[in-house]
């Protein structure tokens, strides 16, 4: 076992039109754990998440300084192809985003079809991804139906399956349950808990109970700065910084 972190940010500053959204963040995530990013709206946690798969730079005027290492490699050096990086670092969004014109099967296969070099049969990979996302039993008899025929929670698990299919090692989730009802939320949480045995999971959440239930480490962001990063348990029970304590006890937010 190497203890090199799977994802490591070093002095990372990410800006929009010269205005930093996060400043000088240094943070590392170990493999096979769930890492939660919490903080009030606009604190930069989503921006930080989007620097890990280089989605941040798609926003016009967005720039990055510092570095992000994934498996020890700096993803902001010139040799890195962001398209290939995003197959290793998958992302799931706040609202379920199935492709509305595609069937369930085609949605899961979408990422594989873009780069058709898998030796394994497509159907096999799709089934594995759907099983991985705990959706297979619900959809195996209607793979050709439109993805829109699924409920919101199922759509979000479909998006997780779609993210799993290209075979990532890191999965980023940006408030994946904030558009879902409590039952669907619980299923996603159970799923993420299972997935951490194979993947490194970074989740942005507004919901402190979710962070406490789910994650191994938690990072608290405030006004673009990383205030505190610790084991989830110690961050919630014995926070070192006043700001953190005020936030986790609900004094502001």
């Amino acid at each position, binding site marked *: 076992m190497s203890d090199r972190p799977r994802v490591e940010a070093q002095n990372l500053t990410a800006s929009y039109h010269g205005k930093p959204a996060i400043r000088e963040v240094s943070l590392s995530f170990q493999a096979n754990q769930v890492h939660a990013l919490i903080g009030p709206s606009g604190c930069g946690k989503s921006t930080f998440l989007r620097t890990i798969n280089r989605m941040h730079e798609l926003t016009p005027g967005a720039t990055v300084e510092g570095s992000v290492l994934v498996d020890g490699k700096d993803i902001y050096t010139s040799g890195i192809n962001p398209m290939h990086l995003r197959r290793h670092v998958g992302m799931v969004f706040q609202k379920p985003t199935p492709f509305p014109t595609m069937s369930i099967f085609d949605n899961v296969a*979408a990422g594989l079809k873009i780069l058709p070099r898998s030796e394994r049969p497509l159907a096999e990979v799709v089934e594995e991804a759907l099983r991985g996302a705990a959706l297979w039993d619900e959809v195996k008899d209607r793979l050709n139906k439109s993805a829109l025929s699924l409920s919101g929670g199922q759509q979000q698990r479909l998006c997780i399956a779609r993210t799993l299919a290209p075979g990532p090692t890191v999965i980023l989730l940006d408030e994946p349950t904030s558009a879902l009802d409590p039952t669907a939320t619980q299923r996603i949480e159970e799923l993420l808990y299972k997935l951490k045995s194979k993947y490194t999971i970074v989740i942005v959440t507004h919901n402190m109970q979710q962070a406490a239930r789910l994650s191994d480490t938690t990072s608290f962001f405030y006004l673009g700065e990383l205030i505190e990063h610790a084991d989830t348990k110690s961050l919630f029970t014995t926070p070192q910084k006043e700001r953190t304590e005020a936030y986790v006890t609900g004094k502001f937010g």
Partner: protein
Amino acid sequence: MNEPESNVAPPKGEPHGFQDLSGTNVGDIVFKTVLILGALLIPVLLGFLVWELVDGSRLAIQEYGLGFLTSSTWDPVAEEFGALPLIFGTLLSSLLALLIAVPLSLGVAVFLTEFAPARIRSPIAFLLELLAAIPSVVYGLWGIFVLIPFLRATIFPFLQGTLGFLPFFSGPIYGPSMLAAAVILAIMVMPYIMSVSREVLLAVPASQREAAIALGATRWEAVTTAVIPSARSGIIGAIILGLGRALGETMAVTMVIGNTHELAASLFAPGYTMAAVVANEFTEASTDIHFAALTYVALALFVVTLAVNAFARLLVWRVTQKASGSGGGR
């Protein structure tokens, strides 16, 4: 002034009366009636139009029957009339126009929504939409003085040199021709197809693009896998709009198509369209049967346009049905 407002303060001892809430709103009734009359006007007008066309062409219908649509003689002196070259010309020129205009318009729309620098997006879209405001007679003049000489000198000889073995590109080159009409029509329908497709592409949520990009897609792959499929039915709608415009266009076409009642395989040969013949010959029709034949052509144009639009709408409907889950979904 001296009449006190009765319901400001209810009299003591009495509950709030519901009579205060009753009464009808006259403005609402008037408005509703006007709207209903306006809405009824359209089917009534349509009915009159059809009746007028059928009535006006009765003489020709009795004389030639449906054979009118398959005969290709047009001889006002001998009183022989057949509309096949006209129907052929209308459909072919519009189809060719779409073949030219659709890829170009979609390319421009995709470029403007996905790839162009933000600063030039609106100015270019605005300029392209201005093209729709140019009167068709101006397009026709431009066709005669600029487009036809250019096509005759460069494009047509090139096509004949490379693809001359095909019947479509053989035969003498005059200038005014089916292909010239198709090119003019393509330029005229492009602004419509472009601007409607652009709006439809803009309406695709950004989350769809992001979802594709997060899977490792390039910008271009995101467009082809996520954006265009979502916009599919709207894009077909845009093409139908362009087609409707092309089928009915009269002035620009008649100025460049050559106005000859002939069925020719070559696209360099002159042709005629239904709209053009009605516009050209209506004022000169001296016999009742000539007049009736022209009205019959107008009726045929009406039916063809209606049929093409109905077919296209059916297509859109089927595409959207497919997209929204082939039944069984919730």
